[in-house]
């Protein structure tokens, strides 16, 4: 799945969006990969990610099966990174999301030194990924370019909505909810931080970037689209 590749926006709009993920190759290095994937997440945690996730269990902010109605007045929007690390119990994709280049570069250096043997990928602007590789002194092995969206694009919503909703490549963050959150921020019914937390809970693999979502919601506040 190309769930982090096709985020909408130009290279500049990814200045606070760096997804670094580790994955095992089936039949080649998947045996005994669980502790290595956990180690990857532990390394990522040192660099203050804005989200962590595993593709089987979800991200650092999740929905609840049994929410107390009183929590409406005191909702816990804090990500639980340790729960992601502790919950990783099977071979899957482990992802860390950062809002700054320096952290992504530092993690790239750390995973190089840790020599986990897993495939590590960076999903961001092309120049951002090149900078991470340069910082770690390793040449890029392969590149998967996103050519964007084409075909019947008249079915797509406006760019503010697309930038937010496409941060979940699996499509779990609906365009209607992204639009609703933009509207609620405009109306002053919720803060960008609160709106971003609602959206983040829908991402089932933890690659949604709540920091970028907050920025985009704030920028959309004053625009009429």
């Amino acid at each position, binding site marked *: 799945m190309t769930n982090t*590749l096709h985020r909408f*926006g*130009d290279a500049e709009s990814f200045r606070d969006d760096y997804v670094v993920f580790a994955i*095992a190759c089936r039949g*080649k290095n998947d045996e005994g990969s669980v502790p290595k994937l956990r180690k990857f997440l532990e390394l990522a945690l040192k660099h203050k990610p804005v989200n962590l996730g595993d593709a089987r269990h979800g991200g650092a902010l999740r929905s609840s099966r049994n*929410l107390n109605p009183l929590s409406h007045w005191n909702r816990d929007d804090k990500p639980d990174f340790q729960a992601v690390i502790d919950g990783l119990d099977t071979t899957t994709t482990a992802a860390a999301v950062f809002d700054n280049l320096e952290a992504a570069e530092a993690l790239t250096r750390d995973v*190089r030194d840790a020599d986990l043997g897993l495939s590590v990928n960076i999903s961001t602007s*092309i120049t951002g990924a090149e900078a991470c590789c340069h910082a770690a002194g390793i040449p890029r092995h392969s590149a998967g370019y996103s050519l964007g969206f084409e075909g019947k694009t008249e079915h797509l919503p406006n760019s503010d909505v697309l930038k937010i909703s496409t941060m979940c490549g699996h499509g*779990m963050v609906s365009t209607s909810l992204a639009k609703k959150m933009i509207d609620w921020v405009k109306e002053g019914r919720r803060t960008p931080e609160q709106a971003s937390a609602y959206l983040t809970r*829908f991402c089932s693999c933890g690659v949604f970037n709540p920091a970028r979502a907050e920025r985009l919601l704030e920028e959309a506040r004053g625009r009429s689209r």
Partner: protein
Amino acid sequence: MKINPDKCVACGNCTYVCPMGAIYIDPKIKRATIDRDECVECYACFNGMSQEHMNPTLVRGLRKVFSIMRLRFDPEPDVCPTAAFEPDELAWPRVVRRAFSDPRVPHESTGVEGRGTEEVKTNDISGRVKTGEVGFTIEFGRPGVGVWMREIQDMAWTLAKAGVAFEKRNPITSLMTDVNTGTLRTDILNEKVMSAILEIKVPVSRTEEIIRLVWDVEKRIDTVVALGVGTRCDEAGNETIVAPVLERLGYKLERAKTNVGLGRITNPSAQEAQMETVAR
């Protein structure tokens, strides 16, 4: 997926969270209702929304009073207050919808996890896309539009006619009755999914030809397409062969997934196989 009408209080939260817009409040029964034709069984409603377990009669009563007083009921937007969503037991071929739409479940229908394969994400180990080759991921329905299987078949037929081979371990390929023609099983053609990926690999020299074929089919199908192009970098980490072709075709390359090349074979059986290959 179904919504229990005895529990639903028609708060409308779920109408926004459905990625396909398949949920609406039916004015006749005053309950949230799912358009089963449009629902792709992604479970975003069931898994994404938090659930409370409030008494439906109480909530309906309160909502009625608020409505009379012209007060707005303002629940958290990601909550189902009465846990009204109940997963269905899905049978073939409807189960295909969930397999391509709910990222949390492996492909029960195909035996392959995810909507595609590992493509270039593990290229440092698998060597799937070699120097001089280009791997295409042609993803339909993304973002947020969805796609009918019959539309994917249209693209598969066109690519097959051009003599392109489909990636074997891809969920769509495993649903083909004939991989040489790109024909899909007839019983799944009227199933709608969140998105699905056709994966192919061609020599770099065919890059433009493939993209032009994709453009032709895009005019005929009623959905969006997200194209991904994977390629190998040179020893210095540069990629100067495919990018210029894409830019000549009008693409502005903004984002990429970059495999940094840290993977290595560690499974004992795979290491033995590798050593045997080297010895030969």
